[in-house]
């Protein structure tokens, strides 16, 4: 391959905001950033004073915006990198970032197929990048998001999704809660079911592109349900993360 090596770039934190009690959106300024597609990820490298360094991959949350790149990081208890990014890193601090990476779990605004996004927990992050890229492109492709979280306080981007930005016309959002629901919520707390994706997804006849992201068990379940509902496995793109017992 004659492709050029993707460079490590210095990335300065220029803003940060809490998404939940344990998740934080980090806005990095990365001079020379080449832009990215919605759904791609970056590698983040941290280096300690003694020269020890370690890397992790994080999905990009934002649409392309010059040299600004947003990540949303969930604090993994006992993690080596995420507690630093969520609790220690301050505006003005620097890390190194390499990317963008990944050419499969991506959505391009030029695509005209309907889109079904199915996110579990922090699996919403790359899906949000797709929603934001659609908004940025003033896209009219119909989008549906099915977003499963433990309880309402665990939602990322809640205000932004609630705002009904006119540019988000044609985006439907359905929340599923697995542990606790708001008062008067019609659906009892519980894990994703066939009925959920049958109600809030697209009929398979519409041939939507499906993007499923979340913990392994969630993704396995969601993908199996989509196949059972008649969706072509080749149009179901998945991104799994987190440990698994298997």
């Amino acid at each position, binding site marked *: 391959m004659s492709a050029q090596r993707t460079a490590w770039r210095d990335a300065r934190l220029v803003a940060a905001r809490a998404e939940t009690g344990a998740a934080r959106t980090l806005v990095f300024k990365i001079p020379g950033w080449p832009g990215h597609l919605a759904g791609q990820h970056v590698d983040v*490298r941290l280096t300690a004073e003694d020269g020890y360094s370690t890397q992790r991959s994080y999905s990009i949350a934002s649409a392309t915006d010059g040299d600004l790149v947003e990540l949303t990081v969930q604090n993994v208890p006992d993690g080596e990198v995420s507690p630093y990014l969520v609790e220690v890193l301050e505006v003005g601090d620097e890390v190194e970032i390499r990317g963008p990476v990944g050419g499969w779990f991506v959505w391009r605004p030029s695509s005209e197929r309907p889109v079904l996004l199915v996110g579990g927990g922090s699996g919403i992050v790359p899906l949000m990048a797709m929603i934001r890229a659609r908004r940025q492109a003033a896209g009219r492709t119909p989008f549906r998001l099915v977003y499963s979280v433990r309880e309402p306080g665990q939602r990322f981007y809640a205000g932004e999704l609630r705002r009904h930005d006119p540019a988000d016309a044609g985006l439907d959002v359905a929340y599923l809660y697995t542990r606790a629901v708001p008062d008067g919520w019609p659906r009892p707390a519980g894990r994703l079911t066939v009925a959920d994706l049958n109600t809030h997804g697209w009929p398979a006849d519409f041939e939507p592109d499906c993007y499923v992201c979340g913990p392994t068990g969630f993704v396995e379940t969601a993908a199996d349900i989509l196949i059972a509902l008649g969706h072509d496995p080749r149009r179901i793109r998945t991104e799994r993360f987190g440990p698994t017992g298997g």
Partner: protein
Amino acid sequence: MGIISRGFRGRPRDEGVKLPPGQYLTHDFPVLSAGPTPRVRLDTWEFTIDTETGQTHRWTWRQLLDLPSETPTVDLHCVTKWSKLGTSWKGVSLDVLMEDVETTAEYALVYSYGGYTTNLPLQDLLDGQAWITYEYDGEELAPAHGGPARLLVPHLYLWKSAKWVRGIRLLNEDWPGFWETAGYHNYGDPWREQRYQGD
């Protein structure tokens, strides 16, 4: 050395463990796949090797299990940064499967149930470097980890160890596979940190 991240200390260093650059140690077995997990039936399962001259060698599930097996214990290195050491597998060496295959091809394209593909030089599949595995840690291989059978070629990043393996096509020319056409390195040597195109 890169820029110092203020206040970052990292985990205590385990000096006894040598990992490829940029990797960290995990004791879990994370799952990475680009699509749904295919459910593969054993009564219709088959593994084939197609040569560059159009010859096909075919094994049923029963025939695979009847071949002499090995129980390699190997380290796994995933391009997403985790490494898992000392994993135990059971399967058939590619040397056994290639024994009666006549070929002068230099490249292999591995393909899977579900449509996944990955490419590597044929020599990386030979000389005790690769297996078609059907047991992990003493148990039958779970579908999420590639069962009923997956290729195991542990000296390369784990995406080369194709899950749900169905066959190998031997080719005179290199034919990039799924991740190799989606921005990842064509060869994928973890010790040279060949993660992405251009590395």
